[in-house]
């Protein structure tokens, strides 16, 4: 479709470009600049070259945070996303009351992340927590443990709400599924395909754009999110649940080390871009280009 002048295109792009420039491009020059400087938030800004970067590389907390963020993304892409897709597929068949189910599934995402984090903080408490309470009630009391303070279980515990509450991801899948033309299903049904075959051969391939988008959103969420570790474990025990976002918060707000914080910010963005490149590569490999480019 070529019948559009450059001016028309520019006109339509301008508002979004302005927003992006003002709220991302511009602030990120600050982030990039501060990566090579040191600042306590009030005093003078001093040039330190690569010192921040070397500090980060040698900081075990940062390394832990980096790895944990990667784990979050992996959990998001390989547990949260398939789970959301499964639920979306089930609901797309419009079982009785599907609208009610859809709305209730979205409900936890409507509640603020803070509230959900508090809930799960109490679920995992040792003496007054729900999980240990239930385990005790069904005779599995031996399994009770300090979920949030045991380095082996802490990270998974902070990820529990993320894995479960797939409302938004599911919604995007449902919206995408709704764009599949009705006659595809007609034809398949006439040919005698089962519901499962239809899902596998028609729906799933056609939701690839939604997979791409959700992968983007999940990655973005995992990199920005910090309520779960912040409220449930404060990043502990001993940084076992620390992620990049919380690291950035701590180094800026508590340690007053803006340079270090911004360097970590740059690392986060680079990680995000790397993950997205990998995701798009994988989707391309799996056949069919994602609909965006």
């Amino acid at each position, binding site marked *: 479709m070529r019948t559009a002048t450059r001016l028309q295109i520019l006109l339509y792009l301008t508002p979004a470009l302005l927003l992006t420039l003002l709220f991302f491009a511009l602030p990120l020059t600050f982030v990039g600049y501060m990566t090579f400087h040191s600042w306590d*938030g*009030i005093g003078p800004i001093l040039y330190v070259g690569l010192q921040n970067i070397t500090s980060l590389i040698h900081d075990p907390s940062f390394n832990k945070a980096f790895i944990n963020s990667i784990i979050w993304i992996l959990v998001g892409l390989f547990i949260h996303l398939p789970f959301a897709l499964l639920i979306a597929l089930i609901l797309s068949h419009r079982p009785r009351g599907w609208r009610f189910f859809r709305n209730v599934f979205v409900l936890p995402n409507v509640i603020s992340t803070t509230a959900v984090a508090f809930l799960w903080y109490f679920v995992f408490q040792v003496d007054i927590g729900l999980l240990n309470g239930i385990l005790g009630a069904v005779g599995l009391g031996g399994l009770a443990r300090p979920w949030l303070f045991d380095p082996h279980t802490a990270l998974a515990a902070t990820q529990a709400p993320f894995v479960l509450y797939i409302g938004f991801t599911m919604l995007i899948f449902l919206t995408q599924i709704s764009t599949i033309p009705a006659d595809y299903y007609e034809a398949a049904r006439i040919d005698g395909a089962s519901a499962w075959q239809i899902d596998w051969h028609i729906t799933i391939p056609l939701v690839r754009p939604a997979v791409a988008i959700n992968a983007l959103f999940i990655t973005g969420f995992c990199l920005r999110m910090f309520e779960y570790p912040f409220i449930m*474990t*404060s990043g*502990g025990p*001993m940084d076992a649940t620390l992620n990049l976002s919380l690291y950035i918060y701590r180094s800026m707000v508590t340690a007053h080390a803006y340079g270090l914080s911004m360097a970590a910010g740059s690392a986060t963005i680079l990680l995000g871009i790397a993950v997205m490149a990998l995701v798009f590569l994988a989707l391309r490999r799996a056949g069919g280009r994602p609909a965006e480019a």
Partner: protein
Amino acid sequence: MRLRRLSILGLVAALTLGATAGPSPGLAAGRAAAAPIQITMMSGWPLNQARGVVLQGLVNQYNKLNAGKVKVTVDINPDWPALQQQIRTMISAGRAPDIFQYNFNPNDLSMQKSGQLLDFTPYMNAAWKARFNPHDLATLTIGGKLLSIPFEADGVGFYYNKALFKKAGIGAFPTTWDQFFRDCGRFKKVGVAAISLQTQDDAWLGTNILSYLAIGLGGPSAYFGRSLDTPTMVRAATLMKQVFACSTADAMGANYDVASNDFLLGRTAMIADGPWAIGPIEKQFKGAAQIGLAPAPTFASGAGKPGDLVTDAQSPFAAGKQSSPRKAAAIANFLEFLTSPGSVKQLTLQGKLLLSPKLQLTAGDQQGADPLLVHLISLYEQAPRRVVEMTRILKPAGEAKLPSLLQGLALGSLTPAQFVQQLQASNH
């Protein structure tokens, strides 16, 4: 059709909104030398707490006294870390708040050195000076300038549940740490934990104990030396680990609320906390005859003296530098009012705070006041030495690292020696 019109309307409206958002009032207006002078004070005390209510009452009183000349408004943000972050950001943008409260840290003088704070020296007349402890004033004088007014300095005492002590067969609050550990076992036998601890957020309840252990062993300068990596600190860390065993299972990973409610609900027998604990205690225990307050245990052969008191950071007032001398004078005048004997008495007795300006209580005042509060005040005034809590005097990087190191100590993944080494290493 209708949808299209609505959409276009919506688009136009949205773009117009974006383009015509005007400047907000309060920003530029405040500084102009118009009468009455407007002063905005940023406070961390919400109005559902006694201290917030008392402060607002004092502000109203002051405004009435100075009607037409000065008007003080209070902007409240009870999220203290967020408030401090906001203040810092404002200072870096050259918009220091008119009046604010902050935690003074002798190892982080960035705010004072920014040049954005008001120097109170010209306003410090003899009468006002006499309200304060000379030592406090000296501490807050940086580079010859008095950039803060001493205000809040909360002492940390041991609140204990007398009923639980009786149940465990313990006669009196332990005066030595050896006794404490023995009592710990007795409490376990009756299904109660000895003490509430916290490892989350800033680990306040945990670091209180560590501070007391340290000064009990090494005296008031235990963690003020050139290095934190000393045998005293290692010994304190070793004992700290044992104290963790005297707390609840939830202590690992507890935040302040879980830990303090453990005490209120009778799951633990003691808690080392500041004066703000008194309100909830009295609400829960209805009059608090059941709750006692004691100074910390000490060591028979340590350098600490019985009654040595660990305190929270000094939380003084500071003010942004003003271009208008009238406004600067008004700010000083208001702070003088807030630190006057009448205000200090109100804030202490009704607001349940401990303040560093001198407090004069008559016998009548003492009778009418909270017994726990009066007791804490006497602990404060009779303390041989007062030492600021450890976490408040570390450099920011060390402060950020301490909670996670404490967790490592509790878990056993760090030996006491490693704990101290890493604390020292991170304190740069």
